[in-house]
C-alpha cells in the first residue's frame, strides 16, 4: 500500500499538467486559427508568414524547440520563467498542427457557398464569420479532439525543463523510493484518466459546436 503515499505529490503534479495542457490548448487554438485563417484568407505576405511558422514548428521536434527556448534563447538575452517557456513552446507547437486542421477545413467548404455569399453581397469578413467558419468548425472538431489528447501527452516533455508536472514528480518519487513499477504504473493511469476526461470535454464542445451555438444567428434571419 506504499503507493498510496505517492498520491498527494502525484496529484499536485497532475494539477500542473492539467493547467499547462489547458493553457496550451487555449493559446494554441488562437495561434491555430490566426495562422490557419491567414493561410487561406491572408494576402501573400501574411500567408507566407503563417506558412513559415507552421513549417518551422511542425518540421522540428518539440523537445528541440523546448530546449532551444530554454537553453539557447537566454544566451541572446531573452528568457522567461520555465513554466512560461513550457506553455509558450507547447502552444506554438500544437498551434502549428492546429493551423493545418483549420486550413484544411476552411478549404473544404464548397465553392458554391462562397458564390452564394458573393451573390448576397457579403464582404470577406462576413463570409468568413457567418458562412465558412461555422461550417468549417464542425469539420475541425474531431481533429481538434485528437490534437487536445496529443497536447496532454506532449506536455510531459516540460518535465525536462524542470517544471514539476506529473512526469517530473513521478521521476523524483522513483529516484527516492526506487519503486519504478508502482510509480510509473500510477502515472500512466493518471495520464490515461486525464485523457479520458479531456476526450469527454472535447466531445461536449463538439456537440455544442454542432448545434451551431458558437455563432450568432443574426445573419440568418
Amino acid at each position, binding site marked *: 500500500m506504499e503507493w498510496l503515499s505517492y498520491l498527494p505529490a502525484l496529484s499536485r503534479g497532475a494539477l500542473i499538467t492539467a493547467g499547462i495542457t489547458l493553457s496550451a490548448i487555449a493559446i494554441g487554438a488562437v495561434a491555430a486559427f490566426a495562422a490557419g485563417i491567414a493561410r487561406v484568407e491572408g494576402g501573400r505576405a501574411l500567408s507566407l508568414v503563417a506558412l513559415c511558422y507552421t513549417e518551422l514548428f511542425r518540421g522540428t521536434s518539440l523537445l528541440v524547440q523546448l530546449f532551444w527556448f530554454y537553453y539557447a534563447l537566454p*544566451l541572446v538575452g531573452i528568457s522567461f520563467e520555465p513554466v512560461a517557456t513550457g506553455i509558450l513552446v507547447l502552444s506554438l507547437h500544437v498551434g502549428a498542427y492546429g493551423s493545418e486542421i483549420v486550413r484544411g477545413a476552411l478549404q473544404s467548404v464548397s465553392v458554391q457557398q462562397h458564390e452564394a455569399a458573393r451573390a448576397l453581397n457579403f464582404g470577406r469578413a462576413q463570409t468568413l464569420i457567418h458562412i465558412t467558419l461555422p461550417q468549417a468548425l464542425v469539420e475541425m472538431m474531431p481533429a481538434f479532439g485528437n490534437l487536445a489528447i496529443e497536447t496532454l501527452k506532449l506536455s510531459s*516533455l516540460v518535465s525536462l525543463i524542470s517544471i514539476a508536472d506529473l512526469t517530473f514528480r513521478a521521476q523524483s518519487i522513483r529516484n527516492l523510493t526506487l519503486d519504478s513499477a508502482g510509480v510509473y504504473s500510477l502515472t500512466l493511469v493518471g495520464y490515461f484518466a486525464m485523457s479520458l476526461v479531456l476526450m469527454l470535454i472535447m466531445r461536449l464542445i463538439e456537440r455544442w459546436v454542432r448545434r451551431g451555438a458558437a455563432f450568432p444567428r443574426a445573419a440568418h434571419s
Partner: protein
Amino acid sequence: MMYGFEWDTTTPLTYASSILPIILIGLTVTLQAAAAGFAIALVLGLVFALLRRSRYAAVSWTTAVIVEFLRDTPLLVQLFFLYYVLPDYGITLPAFLTGAIALGLQYSAYTSEVYRGGIEAVPRGQWEAATALNLSRLQTYRDIVVPQIVPRILPAMGNYLVAMIKETPVLSVVTVLEMMGLANMIGERTFEYLVPLTLVGLIFLLLTLICSAGLHRLQKALPKAGIPLR
C-alpha cells in the same frame, strides 16, 4: 572534444562546422532508432488490428483497451516505465533497444488504426463475394484485401514515420546519444547551446521537408486500383 572531433568556438560559423560531424553521427542514431521503432510499430500494429477483429469479444475488447491506453499516455512516461521497470524483472536491454521498443509500442497504437481503417474500407460485398467463391481466409486477405489496402495505407504510414523521426529526441533522456542528446552534451561542455540546438533544428527541418516531398511523390505514383501480390 567528442568522437575525436575538436570544437572551435571562435565564431558561430566555425563552431557549427566543427560540431557538424558529431551531430551527423547523432543523425545516424536518430534514423536507426526511427527505423527500428517503425519496424516494430508496423508488425505490432498489424497484430493489434487483426486481434481487434477477432470473433471473440474478450480478445477484441482487451485489444481495444490496450491500444487506447498506449495511444493516450505519453511516450516519455512509457519510455521511463520500460527503462526502469524491465530491469527490476531481470530484463536488461540496451538503452537504444528500450527506446526503439517504446517508440514502436506507442506508434503501434496509431498504425493499428491505419490498418483497421484500410481493412474496413474494403466493401462488404467483396468479403461476401470471396465467401461465395469459396476462398479461404488466407486467400481472401492475400488476393483481395491486402492488394487494395497497401496503396491506401502507405501515405498514412509515411506520415507516422516522419512523426516518429521527430519524436526520437525523447530517447536522449534515457542516454541514447542521438542528435539532440549530443547537441545537449556539446552545450553542457561549451556553455554555448544556441548553435548546436539550432543546427539540430535545421537538420530536422530539412529531414521533414525531404520526407514530405518524398511522400507527396509516392502518393501520386501509387496505383489507385491496388497492387497485385502475385
